[in-house]
């Protein structure tokens, strides 16, 4: 399973890199809605006669940028705030955890829709909008793990040896947070890809770049004449999200063999 996931994720990154080098798609109305297999477009053409393969590659780049951006921004903010809350304690911990509780009460996409409505669509808007709710998951995880690690013998030893708080955080706590945070980030990456395509499906994505979601929305308009325009982008999104979920399951098992997952064999 993990091999299938790696192949899909590898292909995704390769496709995104190809999109960088590929010249812009040319409008060619003769080829509008051409079915897959036509000489000009092996995967079919969209309503403007642009090759679907080219647009999918561009969508791969968009998804990769927004997914990576969201995971980095939300992950960094969440880990710093969560671990910081656990280490400092007091009012900081209270404030961070209250905000987390309230933000966890928001359906993430809903807030992202509202934010893009006010701030106007764009890549950066989507990354920030998804991170505003996204960091809370990391913060909860980081706080819980830090509280546990803080009581462990090696952190106590470091404290007794006179290590400053920053050094304990940097040298002893953060490296041990890496494994659970990576697992969380993998699932969050899948969530970000779905959220990004949902937003662009609703017409709230970056209007200047193709996205899998906006391709799919365009395809639904031509469901009868050109079903490939909705089927292929959907397959691509599902494959990538599936690969990320499988990778998340595999990582969970790797880091914590006791926990059984949907992908693993029960003990």
């Amino acid at each position, binding site marked *: 399973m993990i091999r299938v996931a790696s192949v899909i994720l590898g292909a995704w990154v390769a496709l995104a890199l190809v999109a960088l080098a590929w010249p812009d798609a040319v409008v060619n109305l003769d080829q509008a809605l051409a079915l897959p297999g036509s000489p000009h477009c092996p995967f079919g053409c969209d309503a403007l006669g642009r090759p679907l393969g080219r647009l999918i590659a561009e969508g791969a780049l968009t998804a990769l940028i927004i997914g990576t951006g969201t995971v980095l921004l939300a992950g960094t903010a969440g880990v710093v705030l969560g671990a910081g809350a656990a280490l400092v304690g007091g009012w900081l911990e209270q404030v961070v955890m209250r905000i987390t509780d309230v*933000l966890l009460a928001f359906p993430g996409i809903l807030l992202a*829709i509202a934010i893009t409505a006010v701030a106007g669509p764009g890549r950066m808007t989507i990354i920030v909008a998804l991170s505003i709710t996204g960091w809370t998951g990391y913060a909860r995880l980081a706080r819980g793990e830090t509280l546990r690690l803080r009581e462990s013998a090696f952190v106590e030893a470091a404290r007794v040896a006179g290590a400053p708080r920053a050094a304990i955080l940097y040298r002893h706590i953060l490296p041990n947070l890496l494994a659970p945070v990576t697992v969380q980030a993998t699932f969050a990456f899948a969530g970000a890809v779905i959220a990004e395509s949902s937003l662009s499906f609703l017409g709230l994505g970056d209007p200047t770049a193709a996205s899998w979601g906006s391709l799919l929305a365009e395809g639904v308009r031509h469901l009868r004449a050109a079903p490939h325009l909705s089927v292929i982008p*959907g397959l691509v999104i599902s494959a990538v999200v599936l690969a990320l979920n499988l990778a998340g399951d595999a990582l969970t098992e790797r880091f914590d063999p006791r926990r059984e997952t949907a992908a693993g064999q029960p003990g």
Partner: protein
Amino acid sequence: MRWLIARLLSGVMAAFVAFALVFSLLRLIPGDPVELMLGEQAQPAAMERMRAHLGLDRPWSEQLAGAFAGLMRGDLGTSLTSHQPVSRLIAVRIGPTAALAASAMAVALLIAWPIGLRAGWWPGSRADRAGRVFATLGISIPNFWLGPVLLLVFAVTWPVFPLGGYRSYSALVLPAVTLGTALAAMLTRLLRASLFDVRQQTFVVAARARGLDARQVLWRHALRPALSPVWTVFGLQVGALLSGAVITETVFQWPGVGRLLIDAVRARDYPVVQGVVVLLTGIYVVVNVVIDIGYAIIDPRVRSR
């Protein structure tokens, strides 16, 4: 009883904090709604008028206080495009959304209950393997793709169900399946994992050792403790269900609150956007209070806490 009152109060508090947060966030993020609404070439005077009309020229704290007062009266503002009260626009649309969400939940339970029970209680069985594939696929397939594919297969190729409309029961089937599948996958996964854990607990092993058969142990002993984690996460999943409804309604042209939201976003009708987000968040908070109360019924230990 005391516990119940405390929970209700904290629910009301959460709803208010959520409201204040949505309200403030929409005003604090950079971006000028008035400029987006009127275009960049708009006359400064016209922009000022629009700002005054929306109350955006007043200080933020004053706006928030005004909005709170309105909320208490059930007044969510007035739509900029249709000039109707937002609360009335929502009232017309809430029925179809409720019908969609309820049927999606029914679909999810109909799928997750039989598969999850079998998979968790008899790990390694065929139901378990099928359940695992379904659970992984179900959370990976986005509903805005599942919807069009279902339409393609069951409305275009084999016209079993209507392509659109919302007045007949048959029109409800495809949207409900579209919205319910992800929830079904999530619940299957949870129910399986939860039962699998309970199965290894000593009281279950002891019941088996006393010679009770597996089915009896499942229904009499294992099911109740296995349900409490599932129930909690079910509450959190209602949020996903509400956001899913927004997308499903767009795919199927379903005349619910979700489409009202998307139409309002496209028309830059901010009072409506804010009203719908506040409403959906409110529903989510209320559902979770109800879930917590239900939790106390499933697991009596909670009440004494």
